[in-house]
C-alpha cells in the first residue's frame, strides 16, 4: 500500500500536494474543477491586519515561461477573512494554511494568535516583493527572520511555516534563522524580484516598478534553494517555484522537499495539482515506493558545498 501522507512539522497532510498562497484565492474558485478534499492542503491568499486594495493595474505580465505579478497583497483583512472566507472550508476536510503578512512583528503576532484557532497552520510571508512596508524586508535579513519567527512562534497554536524569500545571497542563512527561532516548517520559494519595461510608453510596466517572478522559468533556482536548504535544516520543507508536472514535483522531493506546492501552474492548468498528485502516485506504484520520504535523495549522500 502506498502511503501518500506526510507530516510537515506537526501538520498532517493526506498527501504532499499543496496549492500556493495567492494563486488559489480562498479556495472557492477551483472547487468548480475538482473536489478540494483531494488536495494535501490549501494555502490561501495572503492576508494582512487591515484590508488592502492592492496595486494599480496592470498587475500581470507574461514573461518567457513565467509571469510577473504585482497584486500587492490585495485582501479583505484578517477580520473579513475569518468571517467571510473561512466558513467556506467548513464543508471540506482539507487543511487550510493562512498566509500572513505584517508591517511589524507585532502585527504578525496578533494575526497568528487570532488565526490560531481557526486554521490548520500559519505561513509567515516574510517575502512578498510587491509591497513597500514589511514583506520582503523581513525575509532578506536573517536577524529579522529570526525575530519575527520567534515572536510569532510564542503566540501561535498551530504549526508555523516560514516562507522564505529567494532574493538573498544565501538561502540557508535564512532557513537556519527560521529553524533556530522555532519554525516548524519552511516553505520556499516566494517570487523573485523582476521587472518589465513598457517600451511603447518608455516606462516601467508596473506602477510598483518591480514585480514578482514565478512559473516554470524559476524552477531551477527554486530547486537549488530547496536542495541547499535541505542540506542544512532538520525541519520539513515545502518546495515550490515553477512546478507544473509530477516530474517537477519529484525533482523537488528528491532535492529534499517533504511536500510541494503548485502556484502559477493553476492559472494555465486548473487541474495541475490533481495531475501532479496522480503522477506522484503512479511513480511510486511503478517504483515500488511506499512512503513519500523514500523518494528523497539521502541527505549528505554527496554534500553540497
Amino acid at each position, binding site marked *: 500500500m502506498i502511503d501518500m501522507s506526510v507530516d510537515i512539522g506537526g501538520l498532517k497532510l493526506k498527501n504532499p500536494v499543496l496549492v500556493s498562497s*495567492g*494563486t*488559489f*484565492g480562498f479556495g*472557492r*474558485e*477551483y472547487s*468548480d*474543477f475538482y473536489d478540494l478534499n483531494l488536495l494535501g492542503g490549501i494555502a490561501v*491568499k495572503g492576508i494582512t491586519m487591515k484590508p488592502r*486594495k*492592492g496595486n*494599480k*493595474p*496592470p*498587475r*500581470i*505580465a*507574461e514573461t*518567457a*515561461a*513565467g*509571469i510577473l*505579478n504585482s*497584486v500587492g497583497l*490585495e485582501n479583505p483583512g484578517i477580520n473579513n477573512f475569518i468571517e467571510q472566507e473561512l466558513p467556506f472550508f467548513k464543508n471540506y476536510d482539507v487543511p487550510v494554511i493562512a498566509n500572513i503578512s505584517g508591517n511589524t512583528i507585532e502585527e504578525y503576532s496578533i494575526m497568528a494568535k487570532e488565526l490560531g484557532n481557526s486554521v490548520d497552520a500559519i505561513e509567515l510571508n516574510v517575502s512578498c516583493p510587491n509591497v513597500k512596508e514589511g514583506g520582503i524586508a523581513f525575509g532578506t535579513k536573517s536577524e529579522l527572520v529570526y525575530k519575527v519567527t520567534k515572536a510569532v512562534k510564542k503566540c501561535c497554536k498551530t504549526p508555523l511555516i516560514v516562507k522564505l524569500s529567494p532574493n538573498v545571497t544565501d538561502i540557508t542563512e535564512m532557513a537556519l534563522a527560521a529553524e533556530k527561532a522555532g519554525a516548524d516548517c519552511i516553505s520556499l520559494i516566494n517570487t523573485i524580484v523582476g521587472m518589465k519595461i513598457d517600451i511603447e510608453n518608455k516606462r516601467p510596466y508596473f506602477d510598483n516598478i518591480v514585480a514578482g517572478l514565478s*512559473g*516554470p522559468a524559476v524552477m531551477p533556482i527554486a530547486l537549488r534553494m530547496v536542495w541547499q536548504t535541505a542540506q542544512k535544516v532538520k525541519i520539513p520543507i515545502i518546495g515550490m517555484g515553477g512546478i*507544473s508536472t509530477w516530474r517537477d514535483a519529484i525533482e523537488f522531493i528528491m532535492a529534499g522537499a517533504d511536500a510541494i506546492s503548485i502556484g*502559477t501552474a*493553476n*492559472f*494555465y*492548468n*486548473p*487541474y495541475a495539482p490533481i495531475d501532479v498528485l496522480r503522477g506522484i502516485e503512479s511513480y511510486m506504484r511503478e517504483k515500488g515506493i511506499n512512503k513519500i520520504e523514500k523518494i528523497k535523495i539521502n541527505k549528505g549522500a554527496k554534500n553540497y558545498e
Partner: protein
Amino acid sequence: MRCEICTIVDNYRVATDTYKMVIESKSIVFEASAGQFVHIRVGGEYDPLLRRPISICEFDKEKGYLTLLYRVCGKGTKLFVNTRPGDSLDIMGPLGKGFPVFNTELTRPKSSMDSANTQRGLNLPLSEVSFNDKKVAVIGGGIGIAPLLELCKNLNKPDIYLGFRDETYMVDEFSEHAGTFYLYTEDGKEGCKGYPIEALAKNINNYEVVYACGPKIMLSKTKNLCEANSVECYLSMEEKMGCGIGACLVCACKSAQDDLYKKVCVDGPVFNSKEVKFND
C-alpha cells in the same frame, strides 16, 4: 465552467489580422450566454504560458458550435491563426458575467434569459435592471464588436453603432439584427467618417439601455454619455488575466462605488457603467 478539449471546425480570415474561428464544444457552448468569454491555451508546454481570454462571439447550441472573432496582435493570437480545422484546443469556460438581456421577444429560449439574469449578481438592486423591451442601442469599436453579436441576436432589433479604423468586418452579420445600423470608419472609407459615439450622442435620448464594447476611450465616453443622460449602460471590459476565475486578483479594474478594485474575470467582463471608473 470547465476545461474542455474542443475541436476546431473552421478558422478563416475576415479582415486584415482579423479571424473567425468556429469551435465544436460538447459542454461549454451549452452553458454560455452572450458576453461571456473563454480562456484558451495554445502553443507548447510553456510558450505562451498563460491562457488567452477571448469573448464568445456567437454560439449555436444546436450544432454545439462556438464562434470566436479575434484580432492577431501577439504571440498567442498568432498561434490561433496557425490552428487548422480538426486541431484540438484546450478551452476553459464559459467565464465571467455576460450581458443582462431582458427583452420580451427573444430569439433564445426563456431559460438562457433566466440564467443570464441570476448570473449577473450585480451589486445594484435587481429592480433597477428588471426592464422589459427597453429601447436599446449597442455600440462597438473594432475587435470589441466580438461579444456584441450574440447579444444583438438576443435583443429585439437594437440600433447598432459600429466603428472601425479603416477596414470593416462582420457588417452584414450585425446589420441583419439591427433596427437602425450606423457604420463609422476613422478615415471615412466605409460608412461615415468619424466615431460611432458621435451618432450615439445625438440619439442618446432615444434609448433606455446602451451596451458597449471596444477601446477604453470609447467605453469611457459611452459611460459618461449614458450617465449624463440617465441611460442604463453596460460595458464589456478588458484587463490582462491570469486564472480567469477570480483566484489570482490580477485582472483589477477600478470600482466606482469604493476605492477598491473589481475583478474583470468574475465581476465582469460586463459591468454596469456605474460599477466601474476609468480615470487613470
